[in-house]
């Protein structure tokens, strides 16, 4: 069964059409990369899958683990097993990182409190794994974190919340090579039959560390080409220009 299935998705932001019929299927255990030039709708797709109210679905459906989630609220989708690592994680002062993650775990546990000591132990373990300084547990959620620290914190949250499906929206942007390797290590640690993932990225670099099963190219609000990891490597050489002819009339399959 596919973890994520998107059928003919058309989305507007306000009046402006952004997605013009996206079809996408991600099977359990697969990691897909979504690439494409700026402004083609990659982030819109990510946000729409998560349910961001800024984007309105005018046509199409989204299924998670066989369940139609098209009209579900953001938090319902999250509790159904979805996770979005955001391109620009929001800062919330006054709530510690650890308290926030614990609250999120409680929410995903049917509002039953998750035992605090095992939680703290696991948090410490995962923070060590991601080389995050331990005082970040007590700091405000993303507050005064650098861009790279925020990205690492997104991966930390993913590892703690253990979603069945995660969208990573430009998780590699603003990362130096060391940080990139750590983030990749976190993503690879998640890979299993119970986890699938959509990685939005501009660069082949990330895909050297997290080798995707499938690569999609998005242009003009549609997925115009789908292939294996070699597609990203080709793209690195040729750029998107060669694909511009594919925008018209092409379908994803």
């Amino acid at each position: 069964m596919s973890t994520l299935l998107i059928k003919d998705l058309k989305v507007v932001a306000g009046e402006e059409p952004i997605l013009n019929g996206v079809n996408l299927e991600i099977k359990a255990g697969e990691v897909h990369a979504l690439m494409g030039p700026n402004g083609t709708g990659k982030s819109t797709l990510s946000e729409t899958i998560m349910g961001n109210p800024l984007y309105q679905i005018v046509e199409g459906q989204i299924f998670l683990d066989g369940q139609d989630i098209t009209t579900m609220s953001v938090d319902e989708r999250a509790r159904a097993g979805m996770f979005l690592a955001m391109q620009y994680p929001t800062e919330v002062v006054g709530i510690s990182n650890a308290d926030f993650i614990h609250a999120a775990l409680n929410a995903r546990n049917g509002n039953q409190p998750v035992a605090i000591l095992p939680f703290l132990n696991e948090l410490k373990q995962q923070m060590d794994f991601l080389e995050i300084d331990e005082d970040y547990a007590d700091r405000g959620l993303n507050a005064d974190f650098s861009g790279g620290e925020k990205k690492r914190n997104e991966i930390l949250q993913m590892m703690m919340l253990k979603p069945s499906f995660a969208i990573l929206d430009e998780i590699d942007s603003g990362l130096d090579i060391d940080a990139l390797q750590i983030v990749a290590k976190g993503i690879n640690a998640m890979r299993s039959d119970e986890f699938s993932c959509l990685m939005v990225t501009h660069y082949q670099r990330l895909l050297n560390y997290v080798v995707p099963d499938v690569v999609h190219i998005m242009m003009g609000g549609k997925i115009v080409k789908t292939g294996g990891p070699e597609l990203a490597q080709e793209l690195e050489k040729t750029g998107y220009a060669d694909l511009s002819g594919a925008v018209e009339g092409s379908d994803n399959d």
Partner: protein
Amino acid sequence: MESENPQFEKDQLRDERGAMDPVAPVFSTGVGIDAETIKQISQAKNEPAWMLEIRLAAYQTYLDLPMPKFGPDLNGIDLDQIKYFQRATDHIARDWEDVPNDIKATFERIGVPEAERKYLAGSAAQYESEAIYSNLKKDLESQGIIFMDTDSALQKHPDLVRQYFGTLVPADDNKFAALNTAVWSGGTFLYVPKNVHADIPIQSYFRINAGRTGQFERTLIIVEKGGSVNYVEGCTAPNYSEDSLHAAVVEVFVKKDGYCRYTTIQNWSTNVYSLETKRAQAGTNATMEWIDGNLGSKVTMKYPSIYLVGQGATGSMLSIAAAGANMHQDTGAKMIHMAPHTHSTIVSKAICHNGGRADYRGLIKYTKAATKAKSHVECDTILMDPDSASDTFPVNDIETSDGTIEHEAHVSKIAEDQLYYMQSRGLDEATASQLIVMGFLEPFTKQLPMEYAVELDRLIKFQMEDSIG
């Protein structure tokens, strides 16, 4: 809530602060006030003649002064229907074992005994209009710290009381200060000798119980040169049907190099008018800090002030106000700089929900002597819904030319991007909003002793549930 006999219908009288207990006053002057009532109060307490004179003069001042001409509507107060004095027990209990069971049960419900075991250096809790329990740990006593209710202090240390009483807040300061001076009862007296440090927070608990009880406690704190103290009090009252008045006066004297932090959390039930006058004076290089939380009441008018009278004195105010349905919090602070190189900070945070209103009213004054003064004022408000409202009324009165003042004010709703982020992790909107509000208040809660911080979190959650559930 309408009820003929509110004290005895316990099940109907629960709110988040617990039920009211059926305590019958041992002695009461009944409703209303006149010179005769005041003589009765003074006589019942066996006070020195000079205190009766102060009371009677203040009563005349009270009659002469008008009601406040600014801020919230006070027409709902019927001053003739207030009980001005009643005594819940006829003696001061020294040991916990001596405290009557009904009263003990109330305190246990709100956590006083446990709090004492863990954190208290001493404890005085006011029930009805007079302290019924006062306990001072031996280490404080041996340092010469005096900590008792103000009535007892008047009997045991009349010279100290006479030296300071009413010198910072004279009876003619405002109508309710005059009323307090005329009919005051209870309150805390705290004296910290020279160079003595009371490191453990000293706490007391206030609670209004019977309907129509006016609470007019009078608190006097004196910190001698180089001394320091951290005083904490929490107030909470159960619901009942008739409006009630709380008009306290607090005077704090911090001498040269001294330090005082005075923390209050008030959670009056929403029929209480809380009209307080709190004032402190800080000497040379002394520090005074007010930490003030207002979570309940129908109307609160409270503007704690600090007179920075000595060179290098520092004053700070950190406050939160939460205003829900039918609540109007009109609070703020006044910093009066009267000496060179004095510094002050005001941080005021408010949350308005369910149509509640929270206003900030503040004054920064630099007199001619206050050269090189500095002040920083910050007012942040979250409005939870379009029916709620907030205003700020800052006044600067500057007679110097070399001082600096910074003023920031922000009014916001709960940020959509924060809600979205938190919901994307699985938190529902209500829980996410609560967390955001907790985060907003965190600069305040982190200054509180742990048990107060926990209780405050609980109360805010309880208040928020209606507005975002």
